[in-house]
């Protein structure tokens, strides 16, 4: 039976987290994400979890990683300035391979920017915000309903691949309210961290089996081991020999490769006769669809290329699309963060046209329609 409820984007993230089994949230107030921590402050204790408001975003993400070390599904919610403050610790989580979920409701930047207005300009930061090379998964939902589902997916991916997962929304979607179809949560797949660690006498935290993913049993059990942000060997103890550095850095940065197909969610249904495509994501999805519908009704076929997984970047999907279309319009609410990635992926197979808007008004279907017609 379908169960429709009116829900706000931030609320969908909070409810999706609870459905995924979140047991710990630490956060610091910041517009436009704060509703998430307000809802979890109220609801977590009745779902077997605890919430704490920390003194800043550094402490928030740090506490979240600590809770993850103790075996709990843990998340924080923030926006641009707070996301910047969290970067060192997100890199730490990626390095020590503890799963955490970070929700970033993007707002106008740079700096304090504009708290109540949307941008999509933290895409590069989501992957490259901390020093050194380290892995991330980032998801960009395009509606309130997707915010719910992909929040659950974010937790699943984090626990499965022992990696920080970032949910990138923006102020527009965070504060949008719409009627969504709430699923029967008993039918949603919820992934738990692997528990099949070797017995303590044979166990080494970073001695990896064929999966490439470590098994880190929760603190408090029989396994006593060291978690360290320093380059470490299989035993988790710091070791700065060139061989260990090479093995450590290469493995964490390549461990997701064999799971590419499981991680990449990409919305693309090729239409016959389309020579043009729009690459759009997040809250730009709907205007892009509106523009495409209008173009089709005027006899111009246009494809939508929509990444939901933005990190790892869906290069293979774009390459495939570029075999078919001649032009790709990249529409984003920033100065051009994904356009370079698209160009790199299509390797000249299609002309890539940049469409950027940074005045904090959403990209309208009219202006995208106009761009389509100009390039048809």
């Amino acid at each position: 039976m379908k169960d429709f409820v009116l829900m706000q984007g931030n609320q969908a993230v909070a409810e999706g987290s609870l459905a995924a089994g979140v047991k710990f949230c630490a956060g610091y107030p910041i517009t436009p994400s704060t509703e998430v921590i307000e809802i979890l402050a109220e609801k977590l204790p009745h779902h077997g979890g605890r919430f704490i408001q920390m003194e800043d975003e550094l402490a928030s993400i740090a506490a979240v990683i600590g809770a993850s070390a103790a075996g709990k599904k843990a998340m924080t919610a923030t926006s641009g300035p707070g996301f910047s403050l969290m970067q060192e610790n997100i890199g730490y989580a990626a390095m020590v391979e503890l799963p955490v979920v970070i929700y970033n409701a993007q707002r106008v930047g740079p700096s304090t920017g504009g708290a109540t207005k949307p941008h999509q300009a933290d895409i590069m930061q989501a992957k490259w915000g901390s020093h050194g090379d380290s892995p991330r998964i980032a998801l960009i939902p395009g509606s309130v309903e997707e915010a719910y589902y992909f929040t659950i997916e974010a937790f699943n991916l984090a626990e499965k691949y022992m990696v920080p997962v970032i949910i990138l929304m923006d102020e527009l979607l965070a504060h949008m309210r719409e009627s969504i179809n709430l699923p029967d949560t008993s039918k949603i797949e919820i992934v738990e961290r692997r528990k099949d660690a070797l017995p303590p006498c044979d166990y080494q935290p970073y001695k990896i089996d064929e999966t490439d993913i470590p098994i880190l049993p929760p603190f408090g059990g029989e396994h006593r081991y060291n978690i360290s942000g320093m380059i470490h060997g299989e035993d988790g103890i710091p070791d700065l020999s060139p061989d260990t550095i090479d093995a450590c850095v290469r493995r964490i940065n390549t461990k997701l490769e064999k799971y590419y197909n499981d991680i990449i969610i990409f919305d693309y249904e090729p239409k016959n006769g389309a020579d043009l495509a729009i690459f759009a994501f997040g809250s730009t999805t709907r205007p892009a669809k509106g523009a495409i519908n209008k173009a089709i009704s005027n006899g111009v076929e246009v494809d939508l290329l929509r990444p939901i997984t933005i990190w790892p970047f869906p290069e293979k999907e774009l390459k495939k699309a570029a075999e078919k279309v001649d032009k790709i319009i990249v529409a984003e609410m920033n100065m051009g963060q994904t356009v370079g990635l698209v160009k790199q992926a299509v390797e000249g197979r299609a002309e890539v046209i940049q469409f950027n808007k940074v005045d904090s008004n959403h990209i309208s279907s009219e202006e995208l329609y106009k761009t389509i017609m100009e390039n048809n």
Partner: protein
Amino acid sequence: MSKLDSYLRLDQMPHFTCPGCTHGAAWKSMIKAIDDLNFDKNKTVMVCAIGCAGRLPVYLDFPSIRTPHGRALSYATGVKLANPELNVIVFMGDGDAAAIGGNHLIHTARRNLDITAIVATNEIYGMTGGQYAPTTGEGRFASTAPYGMIENQMDVCKLVEGAGATFIARGDVYHVKELKDLIKQGISHKGFSLVEILTTCPTHFGRRNNMKKPSELVENLKDLTITKKQAEKLTEEKINNKIIRGILLQKQKPEYVETYDRLTGFQEEGGEK
């Protein structure tokens, strides 16, 4: 093999500290305190960050986490709230605890979460080569204070007292027996406890401050510190030149998780909703 060896990762020995460093005495006092308390090693989590003091968990056989610089207390907060059954001990240097992690020190003390912060104060950044710390005394020399320390010296114990800590003690590496008892009481205390340990760094502090011999620095602690009882007999003027050892504050206040669970009606999963 000594009884305390069972707490060590012996395969990691010898440890990295400089000859004459007294961190070892601080570590041993802490291990003895834990041993006296008969804690289950599996249930005792060691949280450290960066610097000489932060390196400790490499050598101790506990579940341990070495965090980014300054954030040990925040990680510890997450560990404790995720599983309040764990004994959580945070071992930090003075730069880690009072400078880069100062904000977390204030707020962790304020919350009265049941964790123990041990701060090894040696007035210097040893690992990076002798730069000054918030705890460096006025006029002391450091590699970044070549003309002498200009800033006021921070009293870590007074800071957390103001913030709301419910147990504060100070010991030093000369009076090690007393130190063990202070740590033991700190760990046993229900609520946030802080034990400051005055340690010494001959390599970077002593060398720049006319105390080249490691023993001189330790002897200096003997002369510099007095017990709380001794202090009660002295005039304020005389106390000003001394550092007081012992339990500086101890009071009972509701602990964070207990209060949280009571106020929120917290239920473990599977419990009644």
